[in-house]
């Protein structure tokens, strides 16, 4: 697409939303990627020829998806209230989570993913434990005990938070020291894996929700996540960071050569190496490692307590 004027950039030509073009110069559009590839890398006298544009489009999108998963570092952030149902519905463009935090008293508290499950599906059973079916022969679902307890706030937790199994237990004061009852198999010392006072969560991917422990009720949750960059199917909004532009061309070229008949192995290998090298270069560039940043970290190297 054409370059835009500064007025278009800052004010979108006076058309709302006026911030539509902010930062757009960092990116190259999907349309340009496909168009440039068709023009520069495809055709007579090129390694890739007689390939339909939809194949180029497919590989371009696949490449962009892959970049979005890790290389781009373009983290989306969404804040939602967690109500009594202790549930956070995953965003419509969610692919994977980066961090889940609770926002409380002006502080962002990073939450720990529960190493145990905190949700379950359950089937309705008779007293003899046999299952109950509906007229269509399907087993009847019911609320699981674990979900009911979690929602009621009676589910115990192995984490050192409000729901911990020893939280609120009475102890004995003897000779000025407090002693508490422990179950059989009690352990001494701290299990650091579960030593977190914050609420915990567990992600039910298939159901598309994050289930929280009961102490998260009525709190704000901030989800940092990655998407695949497909912008809900709106091709005009799909973009690639310019640092990765050359990589995308190399990726498309490799993907096509790799699946094409009668392409010599050395040609495929060359394309593969070029693609990998360009990805590495782009990642290094994007990481923005430069001396002044290192200096700030290195200044603290002689401190004993960090």
């Amino acid at each position, binding site marked *: 697409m054409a370059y835009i004027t500064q007025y278009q950039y800052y004010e979108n030509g006076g058309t709302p939303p006026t911030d539509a073009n902010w930062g757009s110069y960092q990116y190259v559009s999907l*349309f340009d990627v496909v168009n440039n590839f068709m023009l520069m890398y495809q055709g007579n006298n090129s390694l890739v020829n007689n390939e339909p544009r*939809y194949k180029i489009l*497919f590989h371009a999108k696949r490449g962009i998806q892959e970049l979005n998963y890790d290389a781009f570092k373009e983290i989306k952030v969404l804040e939602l209230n967690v109500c009594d149902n202790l549930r956070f519905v995953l965003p419509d463009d969610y692919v994977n989570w980066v961090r889940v935090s609770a926002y409380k008293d002006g502080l962002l508290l990073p939450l720990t993913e529960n190493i145990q499950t905190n949700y379950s599906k359950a089937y309705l059973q008779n007293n003899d434990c046999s299952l109950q079916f509906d007229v269509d022969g399907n087993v009847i679902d019911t609320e699981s005990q674990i979900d009911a307890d979690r929602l009621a706030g009676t589910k115990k937790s192995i984490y050192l938070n409000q729901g911990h199994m020893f939280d609120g237990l009475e102890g004995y004061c003897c000779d000025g020291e407090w002693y508490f009852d422990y179950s059989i198999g009690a352990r001494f010392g701290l299990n650091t894996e579960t030593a977190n006072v914050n609420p915990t969560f567990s992600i039910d991917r298939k159901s598309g929700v994050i289930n929280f422990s009961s102490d998260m009720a009525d709190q704000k949750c901030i989800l940092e996540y990655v998407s695949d960059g497909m912008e809900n199917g709106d091709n005009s909004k799909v973009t690639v960071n310019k640092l990765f532009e050359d990589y995308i061309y190399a990726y498309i070229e490799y993907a096509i050569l790799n699946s094409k008949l009668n392409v010599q192995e050395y040609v495929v290998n060359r394309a593969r190496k070029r693609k990998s090298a360009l990805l590495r270069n782009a990642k290094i560039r994007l990481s923005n490692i430069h001396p002044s940043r290192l200096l700030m970290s290195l200044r603290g190297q002689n401190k004993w307590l960090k």
Partner: protein
Amino acid sequence: MINSVRNTVLAILNKNNYGYVSPSDFNLFAKQAQMDIFEDYFTAYNYYVVKENARQSGTGYADVKKGIEEVIDMFSEENDLTHDTNNKFFLPSETTTGDDYYFVNKILVVGTPTLEAENVSNKNITMLTSSLLTSPTDLFPAFNQQGNSVFLYPTTIDTQGNVKCQYIRYPKPPKWTYVSLSGGEPSFDQSQADFQDFELPNEGERKLVNKILQYAGMSIREIQAVQYAQAEEQIESNELK
């Protein structure tokens, strides 16, 4: 050029007393010969592309492919496609665009910017339209061909003036016209309304003579005329290689 071709053909035939070709026969042979040569340009184009890929062709004056491309582009036309119903448009034809198409090079969806629609085979179009990543959109439109029509995708492309086609048309049938007979011979008259010269470049004259000679030789059952023309054609073909 048509008169010159005709005179040459008649001269060769008369010189050897093979016979005479009437104007109507000549026009039939001329049309056929022109079509043969026209189609050969596409085969030759591919031949030189393959040579180029094998690094066996040069640049500048040695770039034969470019010359062929220029000849083919002489028949290039760009016209609006006539809308039928929904996303269906008629392909170029005598009735819609004024000329029949030989080869649809590209179909353009008019807009800002004007975009090229991609030709998708009937085998793939159904899968393509149901594909999540690659289904045709306003930015990446597609079309498929059925009979004398094309179907544009996305189906919102459905209005007259929305779709243009750049295509290679067939050359117009040549017609050697005359007005009166003088001394038993028809006299060439290019001012006639239905006069049509050959549309091929001048370098095609020799090929035309040879082709027409072959047809004429067949017509008058003179095998020597056919063989002579074939031999000439072979010599010319060898010169190109």
